[in-house]
């Protein structure tokens, strides 16, 4: 059994708390990604699970066994380090065989297991080389191979692709996805800065900030229904647009007054008591479009800057409502536009998210009826 249970896990270095009570359940065979800004405690949490750091308080269980004080090697865990941490004085074969040799496995078994892993990762031609005679991608695969050979219940990755160039990163990402498929019973936990990696690989994403869990959910859930403004800003690139507003008129369709006095009519259910309340409206850049004849116009503004990305272009539009930060709009790359042009924007009202003054997502009638 390789399900993980974390209950109120705290970690402090000296008097400085880094993790403030993490509660998390990870099912057997699940692929979970930890994301969050630098210094939020992703690596620390991973190292606590691995046993490289002691947990200050709380409980960590793998299967049914409390693992707080179990040595790293006895937790049934393997870890791929960001730096790969290959032993420089050993060949690829010896690197992969090291753990099995320490465990005193018979020679024949070691050879068989290392070769099986090497074949899986296309490392057979390199078995006799030292790590310094390998490319970055090959070293990466050796690090994964060393972990596979031990046949772990739980696989931990700490930013395994961050030392690779963009093309290799994409290729290795696919390989990791394939690896996961070939080991359906193995639980994987993956720390990353790169939300594309998290979105494409993970069954569930855990968003951390300052040692707290902000939200846990399937990638699309986090993307569509972020629990708060932080998650909304962190997941998705470019980030969700956030407009401060005030409830002007409540009802089946409510009216919101933006900072520049413009009024927005949205099919969001608000109660009478909420009139005058400060809220934030969140709209993803791709949910905004240039208004056509039939559209109900939402906002109007001047294009400050156009970023051409090929298939799409990102418009930075000054709508006056959010003074410092221009509104970002993702439109097809083929649309002919110029800077300083004035554009009228429209959006599918369902795509607008509502947050309260503290930045917590508010449940709306539409969202409830959809069942989220």
């Amino acid at each position: 059994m390789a399900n993980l249970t974390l209950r109120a896990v705290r970690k402090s270095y000296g008097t400085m708390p880094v993790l403030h009570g993490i509660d998390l359940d990870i099912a057997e065979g699940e692929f979970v990604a930890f994301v969050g800004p630098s210094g939020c405690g992703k690596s620390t949490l991973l190292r606590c699970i691995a046993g490289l750091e002691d947990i200050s308080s709380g409980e960590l269980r793998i299967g049914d066994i409390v693992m707080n004080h179990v040595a790293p090697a006895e937790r049934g865990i393997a870890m791929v380090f960001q730096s790969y941490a290959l032993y420089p004085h050993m060949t690829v074969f010896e690197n992969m065989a090291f753990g099995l040799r320490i465990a005193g496995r018979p020679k024949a078994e070691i050879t068989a297991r290392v070769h099986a892993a090497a074949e899986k990762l296309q490392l057979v031609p390199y078995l006799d080389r030292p790590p310094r005679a390998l490319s970055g991608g090959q070293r990466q695969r050796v690090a994964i191979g060393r972990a596979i050979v031990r046949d772990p219940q739980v696989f931990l990755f700490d930013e395994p692709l961050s030392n690779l160039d963009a093309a290799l990163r994409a290729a290795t990402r696919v390989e990791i996805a394939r690896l996961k498929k070939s080991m359906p019973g193995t639980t994987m936990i993956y720390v990353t800065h790169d939300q594309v990696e998290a979105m494409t690989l993970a069954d569930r994403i855990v968003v951390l900030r300052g040692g707290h869990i902000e939200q846990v959910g399937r990638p699309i859930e986090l993307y569509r229904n972020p629990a708060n403004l932080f998650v909304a800003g962190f997941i998705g690139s470019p980030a969700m647009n956030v407009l401060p507003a005030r409830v002007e008129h409540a009802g089946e369709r409510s009216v919101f007054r933006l900072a520049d006095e413009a009024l927005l009519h949205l099919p969001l259910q608000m109660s009478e008591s909420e009139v005058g309340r400060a809220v934030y409206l969140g709209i993803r850049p791709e949910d905004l479009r240039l208004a056509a004849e039939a559209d109900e116009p939402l906002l109007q503004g001047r294009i400050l800057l156009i970023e051409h990305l090929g298939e799409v272009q990102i418009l930075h539009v000054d709508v006056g409502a959010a003074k410092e930060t221009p509104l970002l709009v993702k439109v097809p790359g083929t649309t002919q536009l110029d800077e300083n042009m004035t554009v009228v924007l429209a959006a599918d009202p369902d795509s607008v998210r509502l947050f309260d003054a503290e930045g917590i997502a508010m449940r709306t009638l539409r969202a409830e009826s959809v069942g989220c």
Partner: protein
Amino acid sequence: MTGGHRFWPSVTKAMLWAFLCAMGLLVIYPLFWMGLGGFKSNSQIFSDPFALPESWSFANYLTAWQATQGYMVSSLLVTLISTLTTVTISAWTAFGLTRTEIPGKPLVVGIVLGGMMLSPTVALVPLVRMLQDYGIYDTHAALILLYTAFRVPFTTFLIRAYMLDLPRDLDEAAMMDGASPGQIFRKVILPLCQPILISCVVLHILFAWNEYLFAMIFTNSPGVQTLPVGLTSMMSKQGTNFAAVFAAMTISALPIVIIFFLTQRYFIRGLTQGIGK
């Protein structure tokens, strides 16, 4: 002129070469002169100090070899064993100081490395008493013990600096692989420390082979005395036979010179890597 910009760099280069050659000559010539002196007769050393030997005679070397053989054995014994003990103890200590959690670690580091400040001369009188109490005064064991004790701090200092630079990830990877601290030390850290270990071995050999003060004070019998002491006693006995003394000196210096030339590449690499980065 196209040649103009080539002229000055080549002059600088030539001057650098000349300077280095002069320095080299300055160091090598006395040694060379000493070695040559061993082939001359005593009278020629005085009449013709800078000439080549009149007749290349190995007689002096033969006498010197016979006279120094006993000291040579002592020196070899003391040097080899104290090198082994010093480097082994220092490597373990450095591992402990860099890789384990000890309460009050800075203090422990301070005490161990503070040993480098200890001047051997100050400790001489108590040491004589101590070694007499232990009953090892005038034995090889006395020298081995002293050389180890006095060189562990410095050797630890060098190895510790090197170990601090080794990435922690390697320890952690080995830990995940199930290695005990002892296995991490022997199978991961020690092999990676090879360059600095070689440097430390060479440095200790240089020290132990040439050490004079302890060897003179803590040994009496010719069977126990090491080469530096043996050479001085030979000088006082055969004070007038300079040719034989030169030959003996050459013989005693030779092993060190050979060891240094064989290992200098690794020796320098170990030291610069420890400091660098």
